[in-house]
């Protein structure tokens, strides 16, 4: 199965990268980069728990299209977010070659669906450029932690904490009760 081979190879890469990170200069941090369409994104390697091939998800009802659904990660249930859809590019039509980057955000584990893993980069703090002043409303710049130039490519570094900060469930259930009352008026 192609997906499992993919998993094995990327998984291996990841382990090596983990070992490398120990030896790396303190001023540098390692980033896992991946592509979505023609764009390249990066997340800090320390938040990446594993990289796995695509497995079919179970859909969740009534959620924005970038929430693809949930999968079973060895007994725990994690949501899968579609990065392309998150940036307004529509839902990814997945193939077995697509990749899920499993990310640890605080207590929570999530998966991000991307097209392919591209690289592991050691990036010094100085080399990270702040995101440009984007017109308000075009890009919600909160989740951009910086830009980096690798050769001729631009890598958009993402803050995973903010990228998929799902609504608080308490907030959610509180707002839920209200429409019931309003409609009666």
């Amino acid at each position: 199965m192609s997906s499992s081979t993919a998993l094995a190879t990327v998984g291996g890469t990841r382990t090596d990268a983990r070992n490398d990170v120990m030896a790396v200069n303190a001023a540098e941090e390692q980033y896992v980069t991946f592509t979505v369409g023609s764009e390249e994104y990066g997340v800090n390697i320390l938040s990446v728990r594993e990289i796995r091939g695509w497995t079919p998800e179970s859909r969740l009802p009534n959620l924005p299209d970038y929430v693809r659904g949930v999968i079973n990660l060895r007994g725990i249930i994690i949501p899968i977010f579609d990065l392309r859809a998150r940036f307004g590019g529509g839902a990814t039509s997945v193939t077995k070659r697509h990749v899920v980057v499993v990310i640890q955000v605080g207590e929570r584990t999530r998966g991000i669906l991307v097209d392919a893993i591209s690289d592991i980069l050691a990036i010094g703090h100085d080399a990270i450029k702040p995101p440009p002043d984007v017109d308000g409303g075009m890009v919600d710049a909160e989740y951009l932690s910086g830009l980096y130039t690798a050769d001729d490519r631009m890598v958009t570094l993402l803050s995973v904490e903010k990228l998929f900060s799902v609504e608080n469930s308490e907030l959610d259930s509180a707002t839920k009760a209200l429409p019931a009352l309003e409609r009666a008026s």
Partner: protein
Amino acid sequence: MEDLSRFKQTYFDESAELLEVAEAGLLRLTPGEVDSDEVNAIFRAVHSIKGGGGAFGFTELVAFAHEFETVMDGVRNNTVPVTTELVDTLIRANDLLGQMLAYAREGDPAPAGTTDGTVAALRRHLSGGAPQAQAPAAAPAAPAPVPVYADDEDDEAGLFGDAMAAIAAARAEEDPVPPGKLRWTIVFRPRPDLLMSGNEPAFMLRALRRLGDATVECHTDALPTLQTLEAELLHLSWTVTLLADADVDLDKINDVFEFVADDCDIRITADAPPPAAPEAPPPVTDPLPVAAPPAVVAAVPEPPPKTPGADAPKAEAARPRPNGGGAEHAGLTSHTIRVDLDKIDRLVNMVGEMVITQAMIAEHVRELPPGEFQELLEGLEQLAQHTRELRESVMSIRAQPVSSVFSRMPRLVRECAATTGKEVQLVTSGETTEVDKTVVENLVDPLTHMIRNSIDHGLEGPEERERVGKPRAGTVHLSAQHRSGRIVIEITDDGRGINRPKVLSKAIEKGLVQPGATLSDEEIDNLIFLPGFSTADQVSNLSGRGVGMDVVRRNITSLGGRIGVYSTPGEGSRFVLSLPLTLAVLDGMVISVGEERFVLPLTNIVESLRPKAADLHGLVGKCDVMMARGEYVRLVYLHQLFGIPGAVADPTRALVVLVETEDGSRLGLVVDEVLGQQQVVIKSLEANFRRLDGVAAATILGDGRVALILDVAGLREMSRHMDSRAPRPPSSPVAALPAPALEPV
């Protein structure tokens, strides 16, 4: 005979181990520093060998072991100094004990004089080192039968200590004889010279314990003063209260004393079980005359063979336990153990994974050609059964009666009553209802709050109550019960009920409800669960401290439970909490809608049916209802609710699963197919994501895919909003009616 040799074998095996224990201890014995634990261990080893040997009539062995033991006793009491010579002597003695055991095993008498030298050496230490050591008068060293002396080793081992504890426990309960059991009272008063014949009363007491729950009382009244104490004589007697199964009869008890019947006085009486006859514990001062009202008084057993152990067929009863009392005591004292909750959680998790694996195998096996794998299928069937049982036992480890929470409430009520100046009476019922520990723990806060609330808001003051013709003291009733796989907890008060006009105006004032809205009584009552809602005119000490009923509801829903309120003005309010018994596993029905699969909790399902066109009706253009068993039930299209493409939309071609919420209201869920019943492990969706409407949790199906577990009451809520929001083509003038069909029928 065969039996006896088996016991002998056990004795020799255990003795061999004990010899090793003793030797290891002796080798660690350093002159000058005496480790009392070490010394005790050696002493016990030797003592046990001696005791067992006595039971089998190995008199030479016993005589020698006794010498050895006496010296060890001296060491233990610091009357025999530990010197290098002593240790050497003791090690030699230990070796010799092994030899004696070997002779006994072969059934050969030891050559005359075998032990002489060592005995002499041992005695030298005894007399030389400790003038005050009561060296027993020179017993003939070799083959001649040697008296066996009393010692208090067993007492030190805790035998009687345990017995006293057991007596205390039994007395505390004063329990009547349970059905099917018999209570025997055995008064066992040995003659003082019982020990001389190599008998150990402890063995008999242990044998009695093996027959049932024995409560042993030791009578020390005959103990002489220290000056007149004869260490070789037995001054103790015992009363044993034995709670045994009905198949334990007089003969079995008599068998215990078979070897000693000549040397003691025994009275055995039985209480008849059901008329729990007042048990008259024999007065300590004079244990012999037993007052046992409706009792069968047994005769002293017939004389047993003179040589114990020689050819006794019933050796079982007096089976020696050479390895000391330790194991026996452990079994008696601890019926419970404390376990780290984490360990249980891991166990629960593992069982959960096992349930998934089992389901996975079952799924694959279903695809095999039938008939060819009969044994596999049978094995799988058994596995399923075992898994279920395992699951239940593991779950029951965590179960705890709700009384641990309920018992905290009387104090709370007293305090609240004092603060508010109201008279309150708390009635509880169903305290023994068992629920998972995590559920119980999470009940404390909601219950505390709700009881406070009931007293503060619900109950009137005594004067007001008298005015309206109620008793001065208000009653708060707290109850728990199991209902269809869930626990239902109710808090009922007989107060004034919810003041609906006030609640409504407060809600409008706070902008929670738009002015001019018409709400049903039930809807108004439920307003109290909204965040930010408080009817307290002023913040009192009790309620209104920022903790509202919304927090209560949130606590309950986070446990997978629901809360409902039912109120009658002037008569009181009733809060009903419905909670799952455990948070880990549930019995579910797997259903499919389009490509998706869901799990419905089995407890919610009434039946599933395929409706005929004639059964279906539209209700004021708002929703579809179905006639099912003489009742109209509202239909909820799951694919609509969840936006699932490719599902069967026509109810006559789909299936309708009739579900019922805890409050009894029914709903018809339109689904594509019902795939089958399955145990599922509840996995949190919130741990890594968040709560979803209409979804209680998630689970992993046999193929490893995730399925959502539906929350029926949540679905009902969702569909209410859905029906009113989604405009349906024929818009009706009565569109604002609160959907009537969803009220309980």
